[in-house]
């Protein structure tokens, strides 16, 4: 069996294990064992992949494997990875691992919660390993639907409204993707739904591409929080339980950017070049609008959700610049944002679990009460605003470098506008940190609270190590990504 197929298979086995487990202890055992295996596999995959590249295997996709599934439509179960997918798989494995620990103290319906959580990760991993359009789309939808119950049952606040809004908007996006996939497949005249083959054939008529490109891009853009289709994201993230927010903002939103890059732009290159200006304007609005919105929110989760809109907008912004540097930056940003937003949501969950409020007007001076969590919160904030040495800096630097390389007025102007988001981010992050962490605690109830327990510390430390690791030695990662981005970009440009 191909190592890649293990990634969706392990969560499936975990679901089976959860199904037969009888108490919380067994459930935890299954989850820890399973997510550790996933993390181990992901790390092993990185080494295998780098080793194969070092051996001089230059094929676009490595570790490929396929078998015919539905012959009448030439649907295959086809897997394969390049540097981008390897990075995303590593990210997902880290988030699943830390998400398990972040929801360690969950009380009601633990078993069901983790079963849905595992199904979600089946979808996520399956999406990143697939190279067949149908399989990819199938896993994409598998990842969407558990969200409804995860938010609806275990969420907080206006959970039913948020869950329904999120599900319907994302499914609306996936309806667009479905019709786009059909258009691409029947338009290309390919004999398989393998996306590399469709790209190699490269014979979708340009007038068809003009129809399908916006459809597919918006379809994936909904999940990537493209303005004005981002409205599900703040409500959804704010209502979701901690681990789900982590996985959703950390990984699932990356499915959007990944799909835009790998399906919309890669398979419909001419239209992508022609129409990119529309989406560049929309993503610039996402970036700036998200940052400004974060400034005026008072709920910790809403602040982070809008900040996610801004940062995910940057991912789409970068891939639309269509050069290797910016696209590498986009993938680095996906990684970096995935890690730090997961860290944020984990910390917010931990703070909320203690104070039972996420309103920043009611939180003061937490630094003295829970120093560990507060320091980690500061680190997450600094990563978010792009402090050198942490991952955010590497990603945003690369993106803006790449964006500024495009040599015309329009791109220069939007790049400068997008750059302002860094400053705005600094405003809301620093204000937030100053408000809730420093100063004196006015609420006597909060003085009794305790600092993080071991499971919380473990989750947080793993994430911080990853963020700092990516920030301090980004080269191996960015090399791996850029050599995979290169063939896609050159395909789009030619």
């Amino acid at each position: 069996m191909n190592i890649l197929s293990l990634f969706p298979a392990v969560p499936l086995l975990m679901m089976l294990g959860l199904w037969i487990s009888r108490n919380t202890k067994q459930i935890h055992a299954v989850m820890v064992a399973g997510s550790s295996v996933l993390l181990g596999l992901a790390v092993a995959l990185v080494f295998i992949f780098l080793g194969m590249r070092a051996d001089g295997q230059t094929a676009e996709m490595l570790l490929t494997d396929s078998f015919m599934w539905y012959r009448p439509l030439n649907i295959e179960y086809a897997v394969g990875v390049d540097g981008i997918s390897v990075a995303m798989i590593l990210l997902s494995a880290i988030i699943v691992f830390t998400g398990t620990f972040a929801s360690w103290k969950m009380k009601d319906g633990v078993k069901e919660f983790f079963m849905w959580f595992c199904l979600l990760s089946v979808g996520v991993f399956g999406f990143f390993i697939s190279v067949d359009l149908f399989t990819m789309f199938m896993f994409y939808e598998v990842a969407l639907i558990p969200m409804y119950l995860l938010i609806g049952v275990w969420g907080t606040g206006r959970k039913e409204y948020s869950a329904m809004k999120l599900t319907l908007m994302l499914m609306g996006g996936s309806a667009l993707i479905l019709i786009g996939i059909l258009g691409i497949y029947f338009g290309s005249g390919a004999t398989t739904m393998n996306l590399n083959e469709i790209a190699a054939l490269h014979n979708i008529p340009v007038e068809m591409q003009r129809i399908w490109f916006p459809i597919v891009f918006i379809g994936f853009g909904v999940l990537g929080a493209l303005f004005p289709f981002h409205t599900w994201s703040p409500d959804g993230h704010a209502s979701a339980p901690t681990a789900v927010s982590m996985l959703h903002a950390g990984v699932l939103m990356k499915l959007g950017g990944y799909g835009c890059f790998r399906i919309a732009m890669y398979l419909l290159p001419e239209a992508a070049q022609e129409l990119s200006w529309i989406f560049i304007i929309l993503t610039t609005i996402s970036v700036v609008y998200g940052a400004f919105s974060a400034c005026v929110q008072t709920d910790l989760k809403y602040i982070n959700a809008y900040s996610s809109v801004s940062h995910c907008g940057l991912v789409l912004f970068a891939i639309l610049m269509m050069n290797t540097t910016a696209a590498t930056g986009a993938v680095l940003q996906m990684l970096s944002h995935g890690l730090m937003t997961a860290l944020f949501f984990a910390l917010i969950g931990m703070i909320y679990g203690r104070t039972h409020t996420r309103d920043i007007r009611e939180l003061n001076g937490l630094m003295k009460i829970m120093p560990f969590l507060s320091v980690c919160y500061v680190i997450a904030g600094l990563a978010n605003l792009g402090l050198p040495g942490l991952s955010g800096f590497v990603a945003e630097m690369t993106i803006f470098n790449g964006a500024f390389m495009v040599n015309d007025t329009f791109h220069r102007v939007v790049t400068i506008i997008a750059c302002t988001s860094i400053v705005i981010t600094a405003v809301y992050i620093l204000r937030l940190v100053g408000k809730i962490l420093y100063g004196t605690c006015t609420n006597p109830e909060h003085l009794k609270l305790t600092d993080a327990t071991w499971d919380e510390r473990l989750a947080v430390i793993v994430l911080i190590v990853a963020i700092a690791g990516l920030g301090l030695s980004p080269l191996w990662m960015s090399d791996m990504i850029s050599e995979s981005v290169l063939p896609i970009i050159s395909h789009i440009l030619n």
Partner: protein
Amino acid sequence: MDFSTILTYMYTEIALVGVIIAALLYDLIAGARGRKYFHGVICTLMLLFIAGTVWPYQQENASIFGGMFVYAPIYSIVKSVLAIGTLLVFLLSDSWLRKPDTEFKRGEFYVLTLSTLLGMDFMVSAGHFMMFFIGLELASVPMSCLVAFDKYKHNSAEAGAKYILSALFASGLMLYGISFFYGTTGTLYFEDMVPMINGSALQILAMVFFFTGLGFKISLVPFHLWTADTYEGAPTPVTSYLSVVSKAAAAFALMVVLIKVFAPMVEYWQTLLYIVIVLSITVANLFAIRQKNLKRFLAFSSISQAGYIMLAVISGTPYGMTSLVYYVLVYMVANLAAFGVITAVEQNSGKVNMEDYNGLYKTNPKLAIVMMLAIFSLAGIPPFAGFFSKFFIFAAAFEQGFHVLVFIALLNTIISLYYYMLVVKAMFITPNDSPIATFRSDNSTRLSLLLCLAGILILGLASSVFDGINLYAFGM
């Protein structure tokens, strides 16, 4: 032509007549004690019948009785799909039939249901419009008795009256249309008719009338007005039969006639279908949102599902036919699972409203999970079978250039997702102070739910079913 030729090509119908006669005789001979085993006997008989006829024996097309009766392997597959649906309905109807006011007429239920199945088989295999009409009537008239089976219940009797009146009206229109065809072509044999079809005004009128007759059976908008009332009033197992088996047979028969007979008028019936599909899917979805009674809710959901089925018909390709049969099979297991849960809950607590299902997961987790998976499959969510069947149907229509139509249908899946999710929300999320009490459903219901569940989980992931159907669709 001797009996062996007839047996070679009509084995399904002959075996089914055998089952019907056996059921009649058993009802007659068995005393009060024997009747206790009636359910087991009939299910075993059906199982044997399905086992004997499930896969086509003859691999080539043939017609007997001078073209009256046509055999094709794909017909045989459709008939087995219908038979499997009937068996599942029998399994889930036991808890209802065991009630004192229906216990004594068990035999009638089985015989009437099997008669409609026989009618559908003949309708599917017809090679002559008279044959087709007889099959259709054989499928309709006993059906109205079934709808009114709980005759002491006001709703049921009313539903039966509504059904038979609308059915007769639709049949009348259909006959009128057929008479126009006879007038313009001078024949009623499918084979002889094709060269004479030229799309004249009279023939278009005739086709519309003919379509009305079947549109009623499939309950497409605007011929759907009987559906909600009848579904609500009829006993739940009958509703499930009506919504699945009867609809599937009519949809398939429609596709066969449209492709085989009306092929020269293809652009006319594609236009007609286009409008009907858009109306069916959209109107039914909008109505479904407001329903409080689960049976009415599933009635509207089944109208919109019928609209999706028509997407395969409009494509008019062998691949479309494969998708249709596959879609019908998948829709059947999902819908029967949903109706199975409704039947179980109704028989144990008498509740059929959506609010009554609030908090069902707390008290009856297994039923709630079955219901949820059925709903997911109906809504087309992977990895359940409904996702695959929807994808193939869309692909079939898309391939023929119906891009806008597929787009409209896709938008409607979002609306349908909303109301399907309302059921999931009721069962899993909404709290309830007095949820339906925990109960154990009987073994027969469990078995039928288990089979449906297996279908929902396996039919999609195992591609061999689809490939198998596809093997024969090209024989058309």
